[in-house]
């Protein structure tokens, strides 16, 4: 695949890829340190500290942590409820770590789902396993150049068939994915409501351009997403919910303008915890 890309492009993808790996490493390291009694705030702080110690200065968004039925966004009405609370982790509770560090100007946005304790956690395992079908469906339909809104609806239908609730609907604008792009590496990187200003600036400028050309950096169920996949990098985050248990993954999907289906879209990296998990289970 890399052979078809220009050197510059390959270097850029490598940058994104290493940022994403770093983020997943952080998620795995923090998940391994979670114990009963840890609060969401503490888990979020553990992620921040881990990444700061490895040179992260800016964020697409600050790390989130959700425990228990908050993994399925039970009773969420306003976006402020996404922020970490003092909910304590207990044995057997599901958790999700969602973090988006910017590493050397390359943002990553990843989601890591787990369950505390040695298990077994048959229900959570089932949700995680069923996410695989969504990863395959998303890639297949993006390669077919289906309008994003229709793909969204297909994912929705698959979730309904599996018996789950669509929980990414709870995200701002109900997005299943959003575009992600390079940001300039500044010394001072403030954030507003948990989102880095640089990243917000990028999204806003994409939204402005997209508005003129008829596309949107937000992949939503609404009319503004009724367009074929736009080349670029998309952080895709299907989120399943089932009676108080939630599970998601989030990773970068690369969309290009290539005519070859295999190169028109591909996952940035296939060596990720959830993918390894499926490979082991298969």
């Amino acid at each position: 695949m890399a052979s078809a890309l220009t050197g510059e492009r390959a270097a850029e993808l490598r940058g994104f890829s290493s940022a994403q790996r770093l983020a997943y490493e952080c998620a795995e390291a923090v998940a391994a340190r979670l114990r009963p009694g840890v609060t969401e705030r503490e888990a979020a702080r553990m992620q921040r500290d881990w990444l700061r110690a490895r040179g992260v200065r800016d964020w697409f968004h600050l790390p989130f942590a959700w425990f228990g039925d908050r993994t399925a966004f039970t009773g969420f009405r306003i976006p402020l409820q996404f922020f970490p609370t003092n909910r304590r982790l207990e044995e057997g509770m599901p958790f999700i770590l969602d973090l988006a560090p910017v590493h050397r100007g390359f943002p990553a946005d990843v989601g890591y789902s787990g369950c505390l304790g040695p298990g077994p956690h048959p229900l959570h395992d089932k949700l995680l396993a069923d996410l695989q079908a969504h990863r395959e469906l998303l890639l297949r339909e993006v390669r077919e150049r289906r309008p994003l809104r229709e793909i969204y609806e297909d994912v929705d239908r698959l979730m309904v068939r599996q018996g789950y609730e669509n929980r990414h609907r709870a995200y701002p604008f109900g997005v299943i994915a959003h575009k992600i792009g390079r940001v300039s590496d500044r010394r001072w990187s403030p954030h507003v409501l948990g989102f880095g200003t640089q990243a917000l600036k990028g999204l806003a400028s994409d939204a402005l351009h997209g508005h003129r050309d008829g596309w949107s950096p937000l992949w939503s169920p609404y009319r503004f997403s009724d367009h074929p996949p736009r080349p670029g990098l998309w952080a895709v985050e299907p989120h399943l919910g089932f009676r108080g248990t939630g599970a998601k993954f989030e990773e970068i999907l690369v969309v290009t303008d290539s005519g070859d289906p295999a190169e028109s879209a591909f996952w940035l990296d296939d060596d990720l915890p959830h993918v390894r998990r499926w490979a082991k289970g298969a």
Partner: protein
Amino acid sequence: MSLQSVPSVPSPSGRPVEVRERRVRTGGIELCVAELGDPRRPTVLLVHGYPDSKEVWSQVAERLAERFHVVLYDVRGHGGSTAPKPLRGGFTLEKLTDDFLAVADAVSPDRPVHLVGHDWGSVQGWEFVTVRRTKGRIASFTSMSGPSLDHFGHWIKRRMTRPTPRALGQLLGQGAKSWYVYLLHTPVLPELAWRGPLGRRWPKILDRFEKVPPARADAGGTGSAGAYPTASLPEDAAHGAWLYRDNINARLRRPRADAHAHVPVQLITPTGDAFLSERLYDDLERWVPQLVRRTLPAKHWVPRTRPDQLAFWITEFVSAHEPEPESAKDGDGGDDAAGDAVAVGPAGKARRESRARRARDLVASGPYGERFGGQLVLVTGAASGIGRATAFAFAESGARVVVVDRDGEGTARTAEMARLIGAPRAWAETVDVGDEEAMEKLAEKVAAEYGTVDVLVNNAGIGLSGPFLDTTSEDWKKVLDVNLWGVIHGCRIFGGQMAARGQGGHIVNTASAAAYQPSRALPAYSTSKAAVLMLSECLRAELAGQGIGVSAICPGFVNTAITSTARFTGVSAEEEKRRRKRTARLYGLRNYPPEKVADAILRAVVRNEAVVPVTPEARGARLLSRFAPRTLRAIARLEPPL
């Protein structure tokens, strides 16, 4: 001690169960003890209440005898047991404890027994499990309709010392329900009444007010143990008045402060009990460290009216508090004999912990786990939408679910997920509810393999939209087959089984807000649903006397797959597809989740509600249909925005 054989009674499975009767001498009296089942099995000891004798348990005992060594005895002064002389002071709880220990030592000398009590049997049971001298002799206690007098005394004291309006209401409520206790404290009169007219009319009174049909010894060949109430009833009731006179005043005035249970307790509360308030058990966690709660929609005499459910819960509870089967098999249980009380060392601790875990697992985590645990629930149309959410909600409450739908893949999925969230068992059945023969076959299979359905949810339905004049008779047939005939078959076949069993149950039919909201867009669908609504109301009236509730659910606009499969008449195939998509989007925007309808269904079963509109628009339309039907007619003329 003499052992004599009495005519055997047939068990529910058809095999006769041998009843062995013997007499146990203790404290100057003789107790009549009956035993069923293999004495090597764990012993379950059933204690009857007032005014009763051990025969009140006959149906439960037969069912338990297949798995356990079942022992029943007549309390002193009742049935075949002799009465103490003099009667006054002969019925104190201390003496009743002596009797229990004597029986337990005679029937199960080296293993603790599992105690089950109803009414006064349960009052005694509470005494047995809270006094020290029975430690190590009892493995578990199942209590129904009988509080501990000590707990009751504290319950009253607590409410008297903090007389909030709620506390006073509870006191007055229970005070009114205890009317008969005051009467029993008058001298002589109760005895005269029982030996006279009251005793003669008691079977009829039981039948009329408590729905306990009298069982004759010759009826249905149930043998001598089947007669109920027994001929000895007037004497039993006259003697038993001393249970009240000897204990109530003493205990309620000065309740023991150390009445903590030293065994796991399962509390079964009938919600329709005319003599005991459910609130009596509110503080019970204070006294019982290992408590499992169950509720049962029934009146006071549950051993007669709900034997299947009781046998199921007792079996489950007793099994959870028995040592692992392999250790039970390898001997007469010598080292398990002491049970919880003296299990020491790391092995004992591990065993205790694993038992506590199993006991905790007995009641599901769902909000109605106490009510639906172990019940059999059948849901049609359960491959998606409201049916699936309902199956999940019941599964979460610990019910066993049968998932029925035309869509085999969907049913399998629902059953699989139901098992993951707490259903002890879940089965998928691919059946078209409109097909009578298939439904008959399903009913046979369910009855034979899973049991009688406790809760039936007739939910399967399809959508049909379009002007009446464009609706063909073929379209009509399709919609009525599923929406109406499906419900009729379900109610007739499964409802019939429920009624034949005679132990209550509940039927839920999914109607629709369209059942009372006319609309030019949905003539066929609304007609079918209006029929379901009326059918439910009529059936409710018919089955009310048999303890079977019927509820009609009217959901409204709920985000389910019904929109994407609905048929639109009078338009081209392309237009139909467009309308489906458009409707699905509109319903998606409304986004009322089927889970909320499922919650309403469970609530309707628990509260036995007749008609339940769910979404705000369904409630609004229901209100308008009663108070401003002309408004509804005006709305009916509007063309839907498709």
